[in-house]
Structures are given as structure tokens and as C-alpha cells.
């Protein structure tokens, strides 16, 4: 009997902690989003799902929703594709590996906001470093106004997103690679496997659980990532680079629609929750099979 209660008792402290830092704010959000609230968050009458219907009737929100999906897929996907080869190279034994690892990890050590600020300067149309570099290389004949429209601003934001996501992803993969025993490769080489075959048959399958972790964690981070887009364009011009968090911030703190902002927040929470549950289930089923 006691042994059946025991696990619950043991998880109780962390459950309580989770309740305070997660459930309580979520409950608060539900309260705000189902009420008419003033701009200082004081609740007025119950309004049901009015805030949600208003949200989905707003084309800016719907556009931001799709763009968030695109942003997450591109940044997470790009970071994964880039990190696997980077991690494999850094896992090899070569002179100066320590230095190379530090260089790859450096963007991680700089605050995201600072990185974004520096890029904002670098992408400045008239006095930015990027334009002057491209000009000197003879690649462009007149300045490109990078942040003036979404066509150039959003791809740059995605690239910067990838750049800052690579260090973390590489770290995960490096951990994974070091857990693969060397003798597998030796045996494969003896049997005459090419490096590509070794990658496909040994490295990739054994790295899979780590890739899964990287996908889940990165998706959560990137989906919620605020500084890059906010600092560079504030979601503009005309909301054309808005993702859900920047849209939420404007709704809440510029315009003062705390009810709708809370609704956005809950929508984001639900999307991430569903994604994580489905993904973890799929990944685990695959591992068991």
C-alpha cells in the first residue's frame, strides 16, 4: 500500500513548485482572457470567448500565427541541418579543436538582445557593415535596405535565429556523438563501409534520440523567441514580420488589450503543449519499436 503512495509523495514537492510557477499563471491568464479587462489588468465582467473570437477575426493575428510556424520550422530545421556536420567536425580530433569549439559556442555566450542590436546596426541601410562589406567585394552596386521590407528583413532574421540556435544544438549533438563507441566505426571501416554509409547506418540512428531532444527544446525556445524580431523590426513594417510573441507584446503593452493578449498567450501555450505531446509520443514509440 505504502509503496503505491510513495511515488506520488516523492513527486509532490516538485509538483507543488510546478503548480506555483506554471499552473497559477496559466489560471491567471485564463481569468484575464475570459473577462473584459482594463489596460491595467483589473477584471470587469465575464466575457466568455469574446477575446478569442476577436483574435481569430484579426487578419494580423492569423498572419502572425502562420509566420510563427514558418519561423519555427525554418530556424529549427536550419539549425539542425547545420549543427550535425558542425558537431561531427568538432568531434574529430584535430589541432585547435578547443579553439574551434569556443568559436562555435561564442554566440551562445552573448545575450540574444545584444546580438540582435549588433545585427540591427550591421543591417542599417546607409551605414551598416554588411552593405559596406558587400559593396567592397563588388557584390552589390547600391545599398540594400535590409530592414525596410519583410522580403529582406524576415530571411535575415531567420538566418540570425539559426546562428544563435546552432551552439546549443551542437552541444547536444556533441554529447550524443561522444556516446557512440569508436569500435563501431572501426568495425564498419574493416567491412569496407564508406564514410557516408557509416553516417547513415551508425551515426544517424544512434544520434536520433538527441535529434529528437534538440527538436523539442529548440521548437519551444524558437517559437517563444522575442528579442531578434523585436529589436530588428518590432514586427514591422506594417506587421509583416510579426510572430505571435511580438504581436502579443504590442497588444498588451502598446495598445493595452490585456484580454486579447492573454488569449494569444494561451493559444501559444496550447500549440506548444500539443506539439510536445504529439512529438514525444511519436519519438518514444519509434524508440520502442
Amino acid at each position: 500500500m505504502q509503496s503505491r503512495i510513495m511515488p506520488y509523495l516523492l513527486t509532490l514537492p516538485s509538483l507543488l513548485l510546478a503548480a506555483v510557477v506554471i499552473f497559477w499563471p496559466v489560471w491567471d491568464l485564463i481569468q484575464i482572457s475570459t473577462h473584459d479587462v482594463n489596460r491595467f489588468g483589473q477584471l470587469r465582467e465575464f466575457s466568455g470567448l469574446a477575446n478569442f473570437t476577436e483574435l481569430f477575426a484579426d487578419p494580423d493575428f492569423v498572419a502572425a500565427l502562420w509566420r510563427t510556424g514558418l519561423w519555427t520550422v525554418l530556424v529549427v530545421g536550419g539549425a539542425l541541418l547545420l549543427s550535425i556536420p558542425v558537431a561531427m567536425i568538432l568531434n574529430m580530433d584535430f589541432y585547435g579543436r578547443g579553439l574551434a569549439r569556443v568559436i562555435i559556442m561564442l554566440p551562445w555566450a552573448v545575450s540574444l538582445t545584444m546580438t540582435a542590436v549588433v545585427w540591427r546596426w550591421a543591417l542599417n541601410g546607409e551605414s551598416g557593415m554588411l552593405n559596406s562589406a558587400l559593396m567592397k567585394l563588388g557584390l552589390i552596386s547600391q545599398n540594400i535596405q535590409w530592414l525596410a521590407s519583410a522580403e529582406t528583413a524576415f530571411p535575415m532574421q531567420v538566418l540570425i535565429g539559426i546562428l544563435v540556435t546552432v551552439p546549443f544544438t551542437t552541444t547536444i549533438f556533441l554529447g550524443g556523438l561522444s556516446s557512440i563507441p569508436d569500435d563501431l566505426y572501426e568495425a564498419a571501416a574493416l567491412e569496407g563501409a564508406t564514410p557516408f554509409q557509416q553516417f547513415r547506418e551508425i551515426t544517424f540512428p544512434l544520434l536520433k534520440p538527441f535529434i529528437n531532444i534538440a527538436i523539442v527544446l529548440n521548437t519551444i525556445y524558437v517559437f517563444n523567441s522575442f528579442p531578434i524580431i523585436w529589436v530588428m523590426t518590432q514586427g514591422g513594417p506594417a506587421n509583416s514580420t510579426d510572430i505571435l510573441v511580438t504581436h502579443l507584446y504590442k497588444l498588451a503593452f502598446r495598445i493595452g488589450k490585456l484580454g486579447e493578449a492573454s488569449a494569444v498567450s494561451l493559444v501559444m501555450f496550447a500549440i506548444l503543449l500539443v506539439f510536445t505531446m504529439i512529438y514525444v509520443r511519436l519519438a518514444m514509440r519509434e524508440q520502442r519499436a
Partner: protein
Amino acid sequence: MSLAKWTVGLLAGMSMLALAAPADAGEVRVTVAEYSAKTGPYFEEVKKEFEAANPGITIKYEVVPWDVLLQKLTTDITAGTNADLSIIGTRWLIDFVQQDVAEPLDSYIKPEFKDRFIDTFLSPSIMDGHTYGLPIAASARAMYYNKELFEKAGIAKPPATWTELQEDARKIKAIGAFGFGLQGKEIETDVYYYYAMWSQGTEILNKDGTSGLSTPGALEAAKLYKSMVDEGLTEPGVTSNNREDVQNLFKQGKVGMMITAPFLSNQIKEEAPNLKYGVAAIPAGPTGARGTYGVTDSIIMFKNSKNKDEAWKLLDFLFTKEQRAKFTQGEGFLPVNKEEAKMDYYVNNADLAAFTALLPDARFAPVIPGWEEIAQITSDAMQKIYLGSAKPEDALKEAADKANAVLKKK
């Protein structure tokens, strides 16, 4: 427990209370907006002087950058942890008054105190006959022009009308600089458009309280800017330049004309002392109408403040002539104090004279709830027009509809 121990404990407890009590009773917390690097040091100076003159009162500041001020106040008020006094944008005041968080100051204001102010700047903080805030900062906008570029392009004097401005911009473009600096990003993107709109005789709100964006004047103004963008009379990439970006271009001598606030003079003095520039009126429209944007920031007292009398003492101190002069001159604002305005610093300053001359044409942000949302809607519409992703007619119509929906809600 022996009696001695008891007494010691009690004494210790009492002395702790005694230490804690005055810190609580006489503490005035102030949320200060950081206008520039000089804001913090100025207020520290105030603290020193004020506390020396008023023993028992301590001042505690929270210095917050402008960008996050409204966010901080929103969260503070929601949580009930707001300070006693705060600087706010006067355009937010109506929300604070309607939600009953701002304390009316009428009971503290003596006629002598009220008489210190220039009416134009005090009146935006008065609502329904009650004074809810005091203008801590006041500013207006005028046109800066680069004298060197003007000379090189053969332009004798700053343009008096928008048509002249267009011609001058063409001449400046011909010598390889940007004619007119047009702001197209972030805060006050909408205001930059109003300058042209006001000169067409159109106001932000029509007389019947609907949005002015659907009037012919508004369309004329939008078309004017759009044609200048298309003709290359502005800097390239308008929608990537916020006010500071355009100011930087002006300081670098790359822009012929731009409209901005008096603080640019201070920045030029420090960062580009060799730049030859002048300040002129904002150009007028075909009928001679013109408008500049007047802004005040107010310092308000919160209704839930527990130290209102102490807080008022600080306000009284802040609005003396000497304190005002120190602050205003450091930040590059306009004087709000009558006596202060008579000081040599202001009287002999040609730049500031151009700004004060425009004050009769100043429009302040309309006092309506939801103003920030309407500003955002207008800025978005302008960005679409500048980018060419929507026709001026369509963008303005859409914006007017949205703005009217906001206006109707209240």
C-alpha cells in the same frame, strides 16, 4: 527567560521598528523616464538637494527607458506595486484617469503654483476641470535644414510650403544627398505623417469625432509623401528608419531637411559640432494651414500613494524655476515655467525661438481612450503606403475604418 533578556529583546525590536518606520513613512518612490544619459544624474542631484532641505523624507527612483515605461507601469499597477509618483506620456493620462489610478492634484495646487506654468503646456494635463498631472517635459517639432547642402544646391531659404520643399528636395537630390528625411519606423511614424496632413487642413479627428484619415486632405498628404518616396527625394529604405536613424543621417550631413524635436540641437552640439544647420517652421499647405506636434509628459501622483503630502513637496520642488531650468536645458526641452522662459538661455537661442514660434500651431495628441491603438493603426497604414504594398486610398480607408471602430467602442 530573565527580565533583562526580555528588555534587551524588546529594545532591539523597538529600535528596529524605529529604524524601519521613518524609511517607510517619509519615502517617496518615483518612476522616472530616462530621456537621455543626463536624466539619471539630474534626478540624483535633486534627491541630494531635496533630502537635505527636507529631513525625514527620502526619495527612491526607478529610472526606466521610455520604450518599456508603459509596460512597467501596466505591470506595476496590475500588481499594486506602483510608485508614489511617475512620469507618463500625457497621451496616456486619460487611461489613468478613467481607471481611477491618478490622484487629482487640485487640493494641493495654490494659485501661485498654477501661475508658474505656461498654459499651453499645463492644459493637456487637465481633464474635466481637474489637474491630474504636471508637465515635466514639453516639446514641439520644427524643421531642421542643413545650411551647407542648401548653399551647395543653390537654395536661398528654407521652404515655406510643401511644394517648395519638394522643389528643394529635388535640388538637393541633384547634388547627391537625400532631400527630405522621412521617418517610417517605430514611435511617431504616424506623427511624421500628420505634419503633412495638418497642412492640408485635416485634423486627426473630424468635428463629429470620427477619424480624419478618410478625408481628401489625408489622402493628399499621403500621396505627397508617397510621391517623394517614389521620386527618390527621401532617404532610401524609409520603413527601416526610425527617428534616431533619420537624425543620424542628418548629423552625418546626408539629409537636407527633417522634422524633429529641439533635442536634436543638443545632440548636434555634442556629436557634430561642425554641422551648419538651421531651424525653420514646418512647411504650410496650399491654404497656409500648418501644424506641429506638441508633446508634454506629465508627472502624476497615484491614488494609492501613502505619502501624498511628501510626494507633493517633491513636486513643488521640481517645479521651481531653478530646477526646471537645469532639467529642461540638459534634456533640450521647451520651458514650461513662465519665469524660466524669460531666462537669457531661451530668449537668445535662435533654435528654440523657431520652436516656440510654432506653438500657436501646435496640436497635442487627442485626449481619447485607445489613442495608442489609433496611432499604431495609422503607422501601419503609412508603412504600407511607403512600401507600396497598398494604394494610399485603400490603406487610408482601411485605417479609418479600424480607427472608427476603436473610437466607437468607448
